[in-house]
């Protein structure tokens, strides 16, 4: 059955690529600038967005670059067909997995039957989220090298996992964070706190993904936000409740293969167009007048060009997006340590039979991810060069459509068959990506509740396999439904911060206590509890008072500035352009609405200056764990250290995945 899935996936990918590549080859010979003004974009059923006006008025694409429509227009028929195909394939996997999921170990760890190679793809898949696939290339296409720098963080996080976390955890633990931590400490207290932390981290990540899914579907297919969120949620619940870890692992593997395939093809197309010559490619980027104008006007906001500034080269220099060095270091710390503390990643180590397989899977995941992020960078720069940053940001301010637009362009352009197929495929892959990631998150949160809290705390560890599986399924249903509800509620919120927050909490709360449990003789219950609580709470609290939250008074102040400038212009006798009149009206309204508001915690302005709390909360977490432990010494914990020390170093007594 597995071979059939693999064959099907490969066949599917190859036929898509074959079709798209063929069309691209045809289109490449007729590579003239395509003029596709937004007003006549084919098949646009949605109302013309304000971007259409912008595309006509200010933003003129440079000569020799293709003009993309201001709204991305996938061919609905083909796209929905692709979606249906991917859903069908993955549902098939779920049905197959459901038949094989009988015991708790099946449900949580796929019975330990995943090989190192397969697990490597699954873990890589967890990292290749829609945010990396779409968001990072978008960042690079709009801000240049800062986006590439941003990609190093998630890639590097594998090193911490590889060297100090993966093998020891597999040797010492079973399913969850709670299993590892409760080894030589008071199980009930520790499991309770660990479960709380796991659920918190997973929920943040989940909300961000659900909102992202809703918005993506809305943008691509005009499916209303609420419908998309419920649709994605329902599928995710089905995957987890029926298929458990087996289903989520295989869905991740399939999605990772599709994503790597799609990215490789897109990257190759860019490379071919650039003649495989990086020097000439980047020279073109730097010399592109569209990019130069974008950097000058939109990013640096120099209305009059400053003499001696090479705006094109500026695109290759840091500082266009990431501005504060301390913030970057903070973010870097969160990335480097946070992934090693993410519960849904930790769970993946237990799906393989031994520590050596865990090692192999991390190495494979690292290879896959580094290649992936490098290719994304090529795609990002390619999108900037061939589509122009102005066109990309016209469709979506954050640049999230860059990859999709490039796929459409490379396939032959909007409206062409190749373009439509390729675009539809990439959309469907982005959809699968979100589905796979949310399934893993739901599973991790459910494991914490069902396994740690219910089975071990409430039922004292005594529950037969059938009961455990039943509880696990019911919990997953509950968690998944809550995720849907929260996704619906969070439609208007700024969820980008939530993923960074999840990483910060994992880095400050989970990572220190896992490390100290495994490596420090004196570590005990008090240390675990203090570390988890202080790390998590400090990360949360600092974010609540950081610039990441919405501060109405700041919005009002910015709006006030716009109003003042425009009113002054008006008073001076000038006639405002239509766009400026619109801006004036909008800013006045924004000002009135926001001038008396406060942030969610009642602040006018942020107290903590950094967007990421890592640089403060991680040391705090470590220190709390350290001092908490020393204040309340525990003989038993110290005596039991030998056991966990031997286990984690050698694998003696390793819990077979089929035991529990």
């Amino acid at each position, binding site marked *: 059955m597995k071979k059939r899935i693999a064959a099907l996936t490969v066949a599917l990918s190859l036929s898509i690529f074959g079709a798209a590549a063929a069309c691209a080859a045809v289109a490449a010979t007729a590579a003239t600038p395509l003029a596709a003004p937004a007003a006549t974009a084919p098949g646009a059923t949605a109302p013309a967005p304000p971007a259409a006006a912008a595309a006509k008025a200010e933003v003129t694409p440079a000569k020799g670059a293709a003009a993309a429509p201001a709204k991305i227009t996938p061919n609905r028929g083909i796209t929905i067909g692709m979606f249906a195909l991917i859903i069908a394939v993955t549902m098939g996997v779920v049905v197959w997995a459901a038949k094989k999921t009988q015991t708790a170990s099946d449900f949580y760890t796929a019975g330990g039957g995943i090989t190192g190679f397969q697990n490597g793809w699954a873990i890589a898949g967890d990292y290749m989220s829609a945010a990396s696939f779409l968001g990072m290339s978008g960042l690079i296409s709009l801000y240049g090298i800062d986006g590439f720098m941003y990609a190093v963080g998630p890639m590097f996080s594998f*090193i911490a996992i590889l060297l100090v976390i993966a093998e020891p955890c597999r040797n010492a633990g079973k399913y969850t964070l709670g299993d590892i931590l409760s080894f030589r400490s008071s199980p009930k207290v520790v499991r309770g706190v660990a479960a709380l932390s796991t659920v918190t981290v997973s929920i943040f990540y989940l909300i961000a993904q659900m909102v992202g899914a809703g918005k993506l579907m809305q943008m691509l297919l005009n499916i209303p936000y609420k419908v998309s969120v419920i649709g994605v949620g329902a599928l995710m619940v089905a995957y987890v409740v029926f298929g458990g870890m087996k289903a989520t692992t295989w869905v991740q593997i399939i999605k990772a293969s599709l994503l790597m395939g799609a990215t490789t093809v897109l990257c190759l197309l860019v490379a071919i167009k650039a003649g495989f010559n990086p*020097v000439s490619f980047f020279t073109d980027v730097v010399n592109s007048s569209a990019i130069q104008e974008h950097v000058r006007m939109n990013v640096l906001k120099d209305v009059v060009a400053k003499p001696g500034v090479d705006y094109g080269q500026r695109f290759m220099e*840091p500082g266009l997006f990431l501005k504060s060095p*301390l913030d970057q270091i903070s973010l870097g710390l969160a990335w480097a340590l946070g992934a090693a503390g993410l519960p849904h990643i930790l769970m993946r180590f237990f799906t393989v039979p031994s520590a050596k397989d865990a090692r192999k899977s991390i*190495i494979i995941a690292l290879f896959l991810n*580094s290649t992936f992020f*490098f290719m994304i960078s090529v795609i990002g720069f390619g999108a900037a060069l061939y589509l122009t940053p102005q066109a990309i940001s016209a469709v979506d301010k954050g640049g999230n459509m860059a990859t999709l637009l490039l796929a459409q362009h490379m396939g032959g352009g909007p409206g062409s068959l190749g373009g439509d197929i390729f675009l539809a495929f990439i959309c469907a892959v982005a959809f699968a990506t979100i589905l796979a990631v949310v399934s893993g998150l739901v599973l991790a949160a459910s494991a914490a509740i069902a396994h740690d809290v219910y089975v071990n705390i409430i039922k004292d560890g005594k529950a037969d396999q059938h009961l455990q599986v039943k509880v696990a399924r019911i919990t997953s249903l509950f968690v998944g439904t809550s995720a849907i509800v929260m996704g619906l509620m969070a439609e208007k919120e700024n969820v980008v911060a939530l993923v960074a927050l999840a990483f910060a909490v994992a880095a400050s709360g989970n990572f220190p206590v896992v490390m100290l449990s495994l490596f420090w003789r004196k570590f005990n219950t008090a240390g675990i509890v203090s570390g988890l609580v202080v790390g998590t709470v400090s990360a949360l609290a600092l974010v609540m008072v950081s610039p990441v939250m919405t501060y109405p008074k700041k919005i009002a102040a910015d709006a006030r500035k716009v109003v003042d400038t425009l009113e002054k212009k008006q008073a001076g006798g000038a006639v405002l352009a239509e766009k400026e009149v619109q801006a004036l009206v909008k800013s006045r309204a924004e000002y009135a609405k926001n001038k008396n508001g406060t942030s969610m915690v009642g602040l006018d302005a942020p107290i903590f200056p950094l967007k990421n709390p890592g640089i403060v909360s991680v040391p705090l977490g470590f220190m709390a764990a350290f001092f908490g432990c020393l204040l309340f010494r525990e003989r038993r914990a110290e005596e039991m250290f030998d056991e966990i020390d031997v286990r984690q*170093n*050698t694998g003696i007594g390793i819990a077979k995945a089929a035991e529990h």
Partner: protein
Amino acid sequence: MSEKPQWEAIAKHSSFIELKRKKRNFLFSWWIISTIYYLLLPVISGYFPEAFRVKVIGPINFGYLFILSQFVMAIGVAIYYAHVANKTFDRLTKQLLDALK
């Protein structure tokens, strides 16, 4: 079922002590070295951005190459670790297990 392993006894075994010592030295040193190298990225780009601007080949500057080197470093560390783990750690572990039988 075979008797429960005597953890304290194993912990005192010379083979185990050697394995543990070698592992700790290797893993922690390389973890710290690579983390420092990684953190150099935000430090240099934030506090010494001129360094990143130095052009090396055409418009490709030191910054771009330094970022690329991070990828190389990560892959390099992974490969090196796999090599050492296979050659040394796994061998020592097997030695220990044989000695315990």
